[in-house]
């Protein structure tokens, strides 16, 4: 009998040990996946924060620019920079034939004449002189310099020619290629040219969408939650509403996108591809999340506080506004932020309402067309150029950073301001 008991006890200990082991291995697996994921993103994406520049001597020849003596500011604006830009690239190889000159031109970004123009606008005294100007390298050479380019492929399978590589290697050997922090990744809108593409448009688009979403979803959800929790009678109808709110939270987001497309764009004729429509669509999605969070935190306020206020002669409205709602706010706010973070990462509904369009301007208001960060990731991931690969990862890094900050904020609100009930 005694021995039997001991066996039983041993068995229980063993079972507990096994269970711990399962738990630990589950956590280990989760951490492993997370590490692999983050490592992959960072190792691919970090190079996008660097940009390669070619340092090319440019002669600001007044004649080639069609400038008179003592040109005014407007003259400088209207001057023709294409010829000197072309010439300075061609001068990299004095023996180049016409085809090779064309190849030389393609070693820098599409907008290289603009960079030369800005140089002169900054310092008009350069006319007639020669100066070494930083020109954005083409996306392929950028990748070559970062070591991401398969140079050993046969030439006809590469976009960079042997001739371009030869000149580029010469430039590198002479120290005429430099890598600097990629500011334009943060200040430029999207572009077809990978070396010029940036996240400014999609970042602003995301911010505007989230703001619109917050301004619609928060008040509506909080009012709905307060009404349902504090004022509505408990009957079959309110039960029905509650079930449906919970169902709404489980509806796939693309369905909301279809709703936005069918109602906001088709019936209300709101402007396509704008954060306004995106934000309204996302707010439909965020609404149930916030309602559920707000109701949970209203429920967590002890009934004794409501009784205390009511017994003091506060009306129901005063009880709610003076006591219950302020006490539930930390929970509601952190739920809201988490809902917004969800909305921030949402892609499918935004694609349906047209925020997937190519936008090369930075939106100034929610009424301007824009992309959003997750959609930008989608657009770039679809692009063929090698230069976009690192941009995808870099954009994911920005989005993740944004989400982590928001969730951190939600945690801080929850821990700092939530009242503890003994």
């Amino acid at each position, binding site marked *: 009998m005694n021995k039997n008991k001991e066996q039983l006890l041993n068995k229980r200990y063993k079972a507990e040990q096994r269970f711990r082991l399962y738990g630990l291995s589950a956590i280990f697996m989760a951490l492993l996946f997370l590490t692999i994921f983050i490592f992959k993103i960072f190792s691919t994406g970090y190079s996008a924060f660097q940009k390669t520049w070619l340092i090319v001597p440019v002669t600001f020849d007044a004649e080639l620019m069609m400038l008179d003596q003592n040109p005014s500011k407007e003259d400088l604006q209207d001057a023709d920079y294409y010829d000197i830009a072309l010439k300075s690239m061609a001068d990299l190889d004095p023996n180049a034939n016409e085809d090779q000159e064309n190849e030389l031109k393609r070693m820098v970004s599409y907008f290289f004449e603009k960079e030369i123009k800005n140089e002169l606008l900054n310092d008009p005294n350069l006319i007639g002189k020669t100066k070494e100007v930083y020109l954005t390298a083409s996306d392929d050479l950028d990748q070559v310099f970062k070591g991401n380019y398969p140079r050993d492929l046969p030439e006809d399978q590469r976009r960079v020619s042997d001739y371009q590589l030869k000149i580029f290697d010469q430039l590198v050997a002479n120290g005429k290629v430099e890598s600097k922090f990629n500011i334009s990744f943060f200040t430029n809108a999207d572009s077809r040219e990978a070396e010029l593409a940036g996240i400014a448009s999609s970042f602003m688009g995301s911010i505007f969408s989230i703001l619109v979403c917050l301004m619609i979803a928060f008040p509506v959800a909080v009012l709905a939650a307060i009404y349902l929790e504090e004022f509505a009678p408990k009957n079959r109808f309110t039960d029905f509403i509650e079930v449906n709110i919970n169902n709404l939270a489980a509806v796939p987001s693309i369905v909301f996108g279809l709703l936005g497309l069918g109602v906001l764009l088709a019936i209300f004729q709101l402007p396509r591809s704008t954060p306004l429509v995106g934000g309204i669509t996302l707010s439909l999605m965020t609404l149930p999340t916030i309602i559920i969070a707000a109701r949970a935190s209203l429920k967590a306020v002890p009934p*004794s*506080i*409501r009784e205390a206020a*009511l*017994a*003091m*002669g*506060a009306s129901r409205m005063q009880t709610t506004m*003076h006591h219950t709602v302020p006490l539930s706010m930390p929970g509601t706010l952190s739920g809201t932020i988490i809902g917004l973070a969800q909305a921030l990462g949402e892609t499918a509904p935004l694609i349906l309402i047209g925020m997937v369009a190519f936008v090369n301007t930075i939106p100034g208001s929610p009424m301007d067309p824009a992309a959003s960060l997750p959609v930008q990731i989608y657009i770039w991931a679809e692009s063929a150029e090698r230069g976009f690969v690192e941009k995808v990862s870099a954009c994911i890094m920005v989005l993740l950073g944004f989400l982590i900050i928001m969730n951190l904020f939600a945690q801080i609100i929850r821990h700092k301001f939530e*009242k503890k009930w003994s």
Partner: protein
Amino acid sequence: MIKIKAKDVDVFYGKKQALFNISLDIEENQVTALIGPSGCGKSTFLRCLNRMNDVIDICSVKGEILINDFNINDKSCDVVRLREKIGMVFQKPNPFPKTLYENVSYGPTIHGMAQSKQEMDEIVETSLKKAALWEEVKDRLHEPGTGLSGGQQQRLCIARAISVRPEVILMDEPCSALDPIATAQIEELIDELKKEHTIIIVTHSMAQAARVSQNTGFFHLGQLIEHGSTDKIFKNPDNKKTQDYITGRFG
């Protein structure tokens, strides 16, 4: 003088009847204790007196409760005005998670009883003094009320209740969560408060009822078995059930 007159009060929770035909007179400026075993309906009856049962959806009250000869179950009765006149102290201390000052000034604020900051300061001070809490907390009026000890919290709740100068104070087992010393302080306070207020106290402790009250009502299974002066109920009850409960044979 009779302050509150309950006539044939029935209370239902849904279909279940919780109180049967309660008729009870409550004397002004005296302490009336309601005693009885758990679930006998004494708290339910107490909550009828300031209509706190309104909060519970399924609860319905029938019958007349006259306070100053005015039926509070009448449709024309405004609960906000009623609860201004009838304060309540609960079983578990429930100060608002705000400062001591805000706790006490809340009632006067929502009822517009103070014209200036000075007046409000005065109300807060006198209320805390009457609740015998002033000396202990006068230096930390702007600290949270939830930081006090249990007994202090309960006295804060009493200060909050008397801040609006109610005519009646309802106490629902105010000492059940407190230690004997804090209980003694509250009982002393009740004795003091009855000079200005009519007090009705629900209690589980018969000793407490005997100590603080002048009148006692004994509830059992939703019925008021017997009521009268505390002396009589404890020394010479008419009803056999009362006798059994008082002497500890059940409950």
